[in-house]
């Protein structure tokens, strides 16, 4: 009896060992298989970037050469100063940075205030308000586009940057949602402790919540900057004087006038994209966190 029990235990151990080995091989195969799919895909995702940059460094002849020129030679760096001269790049850059910068200030200020109210103060009506805020995300921009234009036009704001900047000072549902999510992770004890010390909400907000929320505020600022930087519809509707244009709008008009100067168009596109990519590499963690925070907790 003892003998059989022993051998069956041995057999079981043997079996488990075999299974484990098989599992290891399986896992290895699966990793290899995954890389075989992911690597070419990554290559495809990189390719347009490479093509944008390499085109921006080609001579006029190489752009249209057949067979394709993969490695421009010589590198025509002159395309960059040329395209800067073609559309007033520095002016448009200044305009864009000013619009984006002031919008960032507006968004961080207003949304942090509102999110504090909806996330940290207990008052009647805050849940309804939050619900309405979330519901406004469902309304297509096109519904309010025309009446807003008419209102801004009555205020004499059409043709100025005000319609592109002022709305950010009134908060937006998306950012309120994101910040409230973050504020709620701040322990209530901290806020209550502040209250017991006799501090009113402005002080709790400024001295306790804001310092803790710095990463979330940074996320809001970052996303607002990106929105303003890449915005096309807003400038298209509201700006008419070409001296007021943003880079996005300027690039579109540049393209309409010279739609075969691909090397210069690509140089300009690189200059529009590169600042964002650089910003991303410096802030990658905040960035990804912000996206998952708003994408997951729906």
């Amino acid at each position, binding site marked *: 009896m003892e003998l059989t029990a022993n051998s069956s235990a041995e057999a079981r151990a043997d079996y488990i060992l075999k299974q484990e080995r098989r599992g290891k091989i399986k896992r290895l195969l699966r990793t290899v298989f995954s890389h075989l799919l992911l690597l070419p895909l990554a290559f495809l995702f990189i390719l347009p970037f490479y093509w944008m940059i390499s085109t921006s460094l080609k001579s006029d002849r190489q752009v249209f050469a057949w067979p394709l020129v993969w490695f421009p030679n010589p590198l025509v760096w002159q395309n960059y100063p040329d395209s800067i001269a073609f559309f007033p790049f520095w002016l448009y850059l200044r305009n864009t940075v000013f619009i984006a910068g002031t919008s960032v200030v507006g968004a961080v200020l207003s949304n942090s205030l509102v999110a504090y109210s909806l996330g940290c103060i207990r008052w009647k009506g805050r849940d309804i308000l939050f619900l309405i805020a979330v519901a406004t995300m469902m309304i297509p921009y096109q519904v309010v586009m*025309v009446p807003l234009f*008419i209102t801004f036009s009555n205020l004499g704001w059409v043709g100025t940057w005000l319609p592109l900047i002022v709305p950010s000072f009134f908060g937006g549902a998306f950012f309120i949602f994101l910040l409230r999510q973050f504020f709620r992770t701040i322990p209530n004890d901290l806020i209550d402790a502040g209250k017991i010390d006799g501090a009113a909400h402005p002080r709790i907000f400024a001295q306790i919540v804001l310092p803790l929320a710095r990463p979330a505020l940074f996320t809001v600022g970052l996303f607002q900057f990106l929105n303003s930087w890449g915005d096309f519809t807003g400038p298209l509707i509201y700006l008419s004087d070409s001296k007021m244009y943003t880079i996005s709008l300027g690039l*579109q008009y540049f393209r309409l006038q010279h739609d075969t100067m691909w090397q210069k168009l690509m140089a300009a596109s690189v200059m529009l994209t590169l600042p964002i990519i650089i910003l991303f590499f410096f802030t990658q963690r905040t960035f990804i966190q912000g996206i998952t925070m708003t994408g997951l907790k729906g």
Partner: protein
Amino acid sequence: MAVTSAPKKRVRMKKLERDDFMWGVIFASPWILGFLLLTGWPIVSSIYYSFTQYSVLSAPQWIGLGNFREMFTADDVFRRALGNSAYFAVFFVPLSIVSSIAIALLLNQKIRGQTIYRTIYFLPVLVPDVALSILWLWMLNPQVGLVNTIIWELFHVQGPGWVADPNWSKPAVILMSLWTIGRSIVIYLASLQDVPQDLYDAGAVDGTNWWQRIRHVTLPMISSVIFFNLITTMIGALQMFTVPYIMSQGDGRPAQSLMFYAMALYRNAFVYFKMGYACAMAWILFIIVMAATLLTLRSSNRWVYYAGG
């Protein structure tokens, strides 16, 4: 002692509550104002304008259902635009969801270089719309574009005319849009990393295979995220504006194949100054978006699983 202090305490509580209410309103006031001025009032006036003829230069003139009647009986551009946007949404939404989930699943194994892959797939999301459109116009150039060159090298057939060909211009926009699914990939990957490991271990013991685990463990666990992403992708697809606007030089060429709904609306408002008509179009868009969302929502209790409720 206790008896006398009770009312005092209640008074104090009342005062705290009143304070909280006051500060709550004050702190929320930017958004309350913003909602009234930048959303509420425009919505109300948009409803009104949609029943009027309004060119900005003269006062709006009430025409009842005239705009809507014109839209559905006399406006070919409206019909084309509706069809184009529907075409784009119907193909793009499922394609983007399936491919981003597939990529996220591949990435979610303890695989070397996971963050590098994630970064690479995410980068296209950062490209501003104008640069994105111009870059892809160049990539998809029928004669010297990179895409057709690769097609020629691989299969020795002449690739399609893409944006120059009315039959291929929408597939071109779909292809280009698939390049920017990185945001969904990042969201799915994060939600996959939240799925508790012991669920898989339990599955492995039961001798299930890879596909069964995905089908019965993984997908149900992230179904609420899929649901949320489905809705936002759909809304975004139906409102697509900048990319087709730039690719078609603003007028939907070739042969109005790139006249997307939001573009037709924009043109009515700011090229033809038919403000009332544009508002009417916006409300039709709103109804379509709502209907699509509600349909998804209604189907959701059949396929969305909420952990703990």
